[in-house]
C-alpha cells in the first residue's frame, strides 16, 4: 500500500444531484430531504431551519435503470458523513445531462410563468483506501424563467420577508453546485466531513428594468460515529450561511417593488426611471443531531433527531450598519427509517420523519412593536420504497409516500391568521425489462393528491396588494389538487461497466374543485417534461 492510498479518506469534495420536477428557486436553496432515497438526502446543502412550501408534485420515480436503490443509514438518511465508511461499500458514477421545461397557469404569484432548464452534472461515490469513503459531485444549471415577479431565489420559504416587482421580466439564471462528503474509519470510530457550495446568478436578458440577483450557499457538516457491534451511534453538527443580493435598476421605465411581510398589505415602492432598488439577505442556520443505527435480522434500523435554528437578516440600504428585517426560527426533526432485503433480490426501505419549525419576524424600525409575524409549521413524511425482481429480466419498483403539513401563520399587524392542514398521498410505480442483457427499458407512472383543510384570511376584506400577491398563493395551498407523472427510460450497456441511458418524463398538475371555488385560486394546469441522457459507471 503506497503512502497515498494509506492516507486516503479524510475529506473530499463531491456532490449529489437532486432530480425531479423543476421548482424554480430550488436550485438556489438546499434540496428537500427525502425520507426514503439517497437523492440529496446526505448533502450538506440540505435546507436547515426551513420548510419550503412546495408546489404540488408526485414522489420521485425510482429510476430503476439509472439510479441505485433507496438506502437507509445514518449517512443516507441523516447526512452524517462519519457513517460513510460503515455504510458504503460500492462505487457509482453518473454523468448526466437533462433538459426540462415547465409551464401552465396553475401556479403561485411568485412562480415563473414558464421555466426551461438545462443541467449537466457528475456525481458518484466510492470507498477509498480501505478505511474511507467519499461521495459527491458537481452540477451546472442554466435556466430561463418567463415573467417571474419574485426577486428572491426561494420565494416560498417560511420567512415572511419577501420582495417582488411588477416588471415581470424574464430572467436567465446560471447556477452551480458542488458538494461532497468524506468519512474515515479509525478502529470503531468514524470521522467525517461534508461540504457543499451552491451559487447562482440571474440577469434580465433585455429589459427596461434590469435586475440582477445572486446567491451563495456554503455549507458544512461534521460528524463522529462510534460502532459497537451492530450498533452505530453518531452525532453531527451542520452549518450554512446563505447570502442573496438583489439589485434592480429602473433605467428607462418605472417599476413597483413590493416588500411582502406576512399578511400585511404590501406597500409598493415606486421606482421612477433612473432609480434603483437594492436588497440583501443574509441567513445563517445551524443544526445538531444524534442518530443511531442497528442491524438485526437482516434489517438496518435508523433513528435520529436534530435540533435546528436559523437567523435571517434583510437590509435594503447601502450602508455598513443598515436597519434589518429579521426572521428567527427554531425547531427539531425526529425520524426513523429501515432497510430490509427481501426474497429474490428484493429490497424495502421505509421511513417516517416529523419536522417542527416555528419562527418570529420583526421589521426594521418597528423593533419596539415586538413580534409582527409568527409562523409554525409541522410536517410529517411517511414513505416506503419497494424493489422486487419478479423474473430474471424484470425489475419493479414502487414508492409510496404520505405527507402531512400543519402550517400556521399569524400576522399581528394585519390581525389575520391562516391555519392549513394538508394531506398529500403519492404513489409511483415503475417496471423495467432487460431485453438482451445489454438493452433495457423501463416505464413508470405516478399519481398524487393534495387535500387541504383549514382557514385562510378572507381576501375580500383585505387590500389590493394582498389580493395580488398573497391571496392567490394561500388559495393555491387551500385548493385540492391532483398530480400525475409518467416516465420512460432505456439503457444500453456500452461496456461491461458502463451504461448509457435515455429518459423522458412528463408530469401534469391541476386543481380539483369540489363545491365552492376559493377566491383567487389559480386555475388551469401545469405541465412539465424532461429529457435526460446519462452515462453510468
Amino acid at each position, binding site marked *: 500500500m503506497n503512502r497515498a492510498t494509506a492516507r486516503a479518506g479524510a*475529506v473530499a469534495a463531491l456532490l449529489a444531484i437532486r432530480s425531479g420536477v423543476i421548482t424554480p428557486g430550488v436550485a438556489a436553496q438546499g434540496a428537500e430531504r427525502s425520507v426514503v432515497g439517497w437523492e440529496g438526502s446526505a448533502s450538506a446543502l440540505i435546507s436547515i431551519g426551513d420548510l419550503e412550501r412546495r408546489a404540488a408534485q408526485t414522489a420521485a420515480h425510482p429510476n430503476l435503470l439509472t439510479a441505485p436503490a433507496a438506502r437507509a443509514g445514518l449517512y443516507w438518511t441523516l447526512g452524517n458523513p462519519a457513517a460513510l465508511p460503515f455504510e458504503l461499500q460500492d462505487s457509482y458514477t453518473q454523468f448526466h445531462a437533462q433538459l426540462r421545461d415547465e409551464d401552465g397557469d396553475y401556479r403561485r404569484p411568485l412562480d415563473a410563468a414558464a421555466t426551461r432548464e438545462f443541467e449537466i452534472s457528475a456525481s458518484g461515490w466510492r470507498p477509498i483506501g480501505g478505511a474511507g469513503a467519499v461521495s459527491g459531485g458537481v452540477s451546472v444549471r442554466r435556466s430561463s424563467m418567463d415573467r417571474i415577479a419574485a426577486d428572491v431565489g426561494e420565494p416560498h420559504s417560511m420567512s415572511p420577508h419577501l420582495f417582488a416587482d411588477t416588471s415581470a421580466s424574464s430572467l436567465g439564471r446560471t447556477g452551480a453546485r458542488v458538494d461532497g462528503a468524506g468519512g474515515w474509519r479509525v478502529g470503531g470510530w468514524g470521522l467525517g466531513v461534508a461540504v457543499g457550495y451552491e451559487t447562482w446568478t440571474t440577469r434580465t436578458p433585455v429589459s427596461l428594468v434590469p435586475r440582477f440577483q445572486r446567491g451563495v450557499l456554503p455549507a458544512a457538516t461534521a460528524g463522529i460515529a462510534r460502532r459497537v457491534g451492530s450498533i452505530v451511534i453518531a452525532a453531527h453538527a451542520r452549518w450554512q450561511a446563505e447570502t442573496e443580493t438583489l439589485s434592480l435598476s429602473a433605467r428607462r421605465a418605472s417599476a413597483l417593488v413590493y416588500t411582502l411581510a406576512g399578511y400585511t398589505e404590501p406597500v409598493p415602492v415606486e421606482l421612477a426611471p433612473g432609480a434603483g432598488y437594492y436588497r440583501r439577505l443574509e441567513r445563517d442556520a445551524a443544526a445538531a443531531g444524534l442518530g443511531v443505527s442497528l442491524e438485526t435480522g437482516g434489517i438496518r434500523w435508523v433513528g435520529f433527531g436534530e435540533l435546528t435554528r436559523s437567523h435571517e437578516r434583510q437590509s435594503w440600504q447601502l450602508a455598513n450598519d443598515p436597519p434589518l428585517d429579521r426572521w428567527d426560527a427554531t425547531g427539531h426533526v425526529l425520524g426513523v427509517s429501515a432497510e430490509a432485503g427481501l426474497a429474490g433480490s428484493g429490497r424495502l426501505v421505509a421511513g417516517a420523519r416529523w419536522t417542527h419549525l416555528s419562527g418570529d419576524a420583526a421589521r426594521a424600525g418597528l423593533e419596539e412593536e415586538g413580534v409582527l409575524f409568527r409562523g409554525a409549521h409541522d410536517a410529517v413524511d411517511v414513505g416506503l420504497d419497494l424493489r422486487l425482481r419478479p423474473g430474471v429480466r424484470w425489475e419493479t419498483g414502487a414508492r409510496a409516500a404520505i405527507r402531512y403539513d400543519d402550517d400556521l401563520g399569524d400576522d399581528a399587524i394585519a390581525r389575520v391568521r391562516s391555519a392549513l392542514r394538508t394531506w398529500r398521498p403519492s404513489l409511483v410505480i415503475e417496471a423495467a425489462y432487460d431485453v438482451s442483457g445489454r438493452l433495457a427499458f423501463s416505464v413508470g407512472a405516478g399519481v398524487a393528491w393534495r387535500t387541504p383543510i383549514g382557514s385562510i384570511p378572507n381576501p375580500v376584506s383585505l387590500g389590493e396588494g394582498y389580493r395580488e400577491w398573497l391571496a392567490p398563493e394561500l388559495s393555491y395551498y387551500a385548493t385540492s389538487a391532483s398530480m400525475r407523472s409518467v416516465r420512460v427510460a432505456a439503457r444500453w450497456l456500452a461496456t461491461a461497466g458502463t451504461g448509457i441511458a435515455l429518459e423522458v418524463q412528463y408530469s401534469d398538475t391541476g386543481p380539483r374543485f369540489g363545491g365552492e371555488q376559493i377566491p383567487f385560486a389559480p386555475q388551469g394546469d401545469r405541465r412539465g417534461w424532461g429529457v435526460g441522457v446519462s452515462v453510468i459507471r
Partner: protein
Amino acid sequence: VPFARSGISWQRTGLAALTAILLQQSAVGAQEPGDTSGVVTGRVTDAVTGEPVAAVLLRIEGIELSTLSDTAGVYRLSGIPPGPQILRAQRIGYAFSRVPITVPARGALVRDVSLAQSALQLEGVVVTADPSGRAEGELGTASVVGREAIAQQPTTSLSGVLSLIPGMPLQPPGLEEPQQVGLRAAPTTVTASAALAAFGTTIVLDGVPLSNNTNLQIPPSGVYGLSGAAGGGIDLRRLPASTIERVEVIRGVPSARYGDLTQGAVVVETRAGVIDPDVAVQFDSRTLNASLVAGRDFLSTQTLTGSADVTRYLVSPGLTDDRAHRFTFGLAHRVGFGAERRGGPALLVDTRFDLSHLREDRALRPEDFTQFTTWNREWMFRFANRSRLRLGDRARLNLTLSLTREHQKSYWQTSQTSGAMPFTDRLTEGRSVGYFIAGQYLAWLTLDGDPWQMYGRLETELGGSWFGPEHRLVTGVELKREWNAGPGYRFDIAQPPQISFDGVRGFDRPRPFSEIPALATTALYADDRITHALAGDMFVALQAGVRLDLLHRGTTWVTAARDAVVEPRLNAELSLLSWLRLRGGWGRTAKLPRLDHLYPAPVYYDLVNVNWYPSDPAERLAVLTTFIEDRTNPDLGFSVATKAEAGFEMEIGDAVISAVAYRQRVTGGVGQQPEPGLLLRDHYVLQPTNPGMPPNIIEPPDYADTIPIVTERPANNTVLSTRGVELTAFLPEIALLRTRFELQGAWIETETEEGGLDVGGATRFRDFQLTPSQQRIPYWKPPVRGGRSVLATYRIIHQQPELGLVITAAIQHNVSDRVWDEAATDTLAFAGYMTRAGQLVPVPPEQRADPQYADLRRSRTGLLVDLRTTPADWMMSLQVAKTMPFDGRLSFWAFNAFDRRGFYVEGTVQARLYTSTRFGLELTLPLGSVLGGEQ
C-alpha cells in the same frame, strides 16, 4: 545503477527525448560525470503504478544542465549551483512536473520524482508562487509561478496569475476593464500613484520587453466613456493565461539585464515545445474562453508550436449586453543547427509570431436619445527571434531581435448640448473671426495610434571558475526604438467633443501622432553572478552588475544622449546553515518618460475678444485670439529608483518561511509642473452696421486686460517612496487531513510627493482668471499622498491524488488599509501668492499672519487630510479541480465565494467593496488522449 550521461546522443535517445531537449533547453550543460559538488540524484517513477519511468528529461530551470533517466528511472545531475532551484521533469504522455529543490553546497541531494498523466494526481501540487527565490539568473526577490499553478488559477489573463504573489489581491477572471499591475505599491488618494507604479513595472514576453511608452490613446479632458491603458503599464488583457508557461515576478533589485523599470519586472515565458494538443474551455456568467495549445516536432531538429485563445466577454451584462472579444494567436518555431557538442546544437534559433486583437463595442441604442456609442479596437503583431550560439563549453552568444506593431483605434460619439459659445479652429497664434456653437449636435472623435517598437539585444554569457569562485558573466547591449505612426486625435472641428469653454482655455485641436518624434534608447550592461562554497554547508552568492541607460536626443541611436543613468546593482546571498539563507540587495533602476510627456500636445488658449450673439445668426460675431503654449520640457529625462532590501529564507523540513523588508524611492517621476504666466486680452468697441450684418470692429483695441494662466509642463518632479515587508510561509502537509496551509503577507506603505504648486482647485483659479479685480491668489505646496496596506492571503489546499482531486480555498485578509493626504490646511498654510502678471511671490511663514495678506488666508479646498481607514475584513475564493476521463480536468471556481460585501464610505471609513461573487467552470482536455494519440 548506471547513470545516464549528461551529454545525450541524439541517435540513442529517440525522437521524443530529442525533441524535448530541443524544446526545453537552450543547450545541454557542462557537467562532468565525476562531479561531486551540487549533485541531485533520484529515481523517477509513475505516481499511479510506482513503476520506474525511463527517458525522462530532467533539467534545472535556468541553468543549462540536463539528463535523462535510465531504464531504472534513475537520474543524476551534478555541477548545480547551491541554493534553491527548480528541477523540471518532462516526458511525453505525462504531465510536466516542476519540483522545488534546495541544492546543498556539498554532497548530494536525493530527490525522487513522480510523474502522472495529470498534475492533479501528483503529491504536493503547486497552486501558487514558489516561496523561495528560484528565478532564472536573479538573486533579488523574485517569485516564480509555473504552469502547474497557472492551471490551478481561474483566470483569463496574466493579471490573475499575478494574484499568486505576496501583496497582490485576489482577482476575478474577466476582461471588462484594462488590467495593469504596479508592483510593491499601496493605493493612495490619487490614481496617479497607481499609474506611476504600473508604468514603472515592465513586462517581458519571451525575452522581449513590451512597452506602453508610445500609447497615446488619451481622450481629451471632458470626454468620458473612453477607457484604455494609456498612461500606465501594459494592458495585461492581451496576455492570455492559457498560453503562459512560466512567470517570474522580480520585485527586488533585478539583474542588470533588465531596464526601463522602477517598480519591478514581470517576465513571461509562453508555452512552447512538444505539447499534446491541449484544449481548455472556461465559462462563467460573463466570460467564455477557449484555447488550444499544441506543439509537434518535425525534420528531426525542428519543432513548431501553435496557440490560439478566443475569449468573449460581456461588458455590462444585463445593462447593455455589449459583447467584447479577444483573439490571440501564437506560432513558435525552434530549430537547431550545427554539430552536437556536449549535448546540444551549436546554434539554436527561436522564432515567434504573435498576434492579438481586442475589440470592445458599446453599441448605439435606438432608444438612447444621447446617441452615445463608443468602440475600441487594438491589434498587436509581434515578430521575435532569439538566436543562441554556443562558443566553446562555457560561452554563448545570444541575439534577440523583435519588431512589434500595434494598431489602436478608438471611436466615441455622443449628442452634445451647448449654450451659445464662441470658438475657433485656428492652429497658429493670432486673432481671427470665430464661430458659434449652440444647441444640440452630434459630436464624435477618433483616436488612432500605431505604436511601433524595434528591439535588439546582443549578449554574451561566459561561465567559469576565476580566482576560485564560480562565475557567470553576462554582458550585453540593448537597442530600442519606439514611435507612434498613427493619424492621431481627430474630430469635426465644427462640432467639437469638448463643450466646456471658459473663454480662456480653448479646445484641444486635432493632432497627428505621426508627427511626434521617435524614442531611441541604448543600454549597455554587465552582470556577474558569483557562487562560492564556504566551510561546511555554507556558501555565498553575489550578483553584481551595472547598467547604463541612454535616452538619445534624436530619433536614432547615433544621436547624442539627452539623458543617461548609470545603474549599479548588487545582490548577495549567504547560506549560513543548510536551512537558512540571508539575502540582501541594493541598486538603481531607471524608467523612460512616456512619449506624450516628452512631446506633449500644445495648449491652445483662445481668448474671446468679441462675443456678439444677437438673435439673428447673420448678425453674430465672434473674435478670438489664439495663443499656443508649447509644453515641451527639453530637460525631461529618466526617473530613477533606488532600491534596497534584506531578508531571509528558512527551510525546515517541508516548511519554508521567507521574509524580506524593502525600501525604494523613485525620484524624477514624471508629473505636471505648473508654470504661471499671463496673456493679454484685447477688448474692442463695436460699431453697428446694417441689419443682417455683423458689427464692425473699431481698431485699435479699446483696452487690454491680463489673464493669468498656469501651463502644466511635464517634469521629473514626482517622488514615489515605498517601504514594506513581504512574508511567505508554506507549512508542511497535515497528513491526516491531507491538507496544507500557505501564507503570503505584505505590508506596504507608499507616499507620493508631487512637485509644483497647488492653486486650490480649478474652479478657484478660473474665477481668478476671469475676475480682473482680483489681483492675486494664494498657492500652497502640494500635499503628500500616502497609503498603507496590510494584506495577507491564506491558502488551504486539500489534495487527494488517488482521486485526482485538489480543493483550494484562498482567503484574502485585508488586515488594514489607510490613506491620507499630508498637508497643512489652516489659513496660514499658503506658501505664497500668484499675481495677475503670472508671478509667484513666496511669503515666509512668519509674515503670513500680517494684515497685508488677509485676502490670502483662505481655507484650502480639494484636499482630504483626514486619516481614512478601512476596518479589517476578509473574503474567500474557492476552487475544486478534479481529473476527468481521457486525462481531462474539470475545475469549478467561485470568486468571493461567501459574497462578502466589504465596506462603504462612511465618516472616516474608506470604501473597500469586494467584487461580487463570480463562479465558473473550466474543462481542460488533452486531444491526444481523446483521439487515441501518443501517450
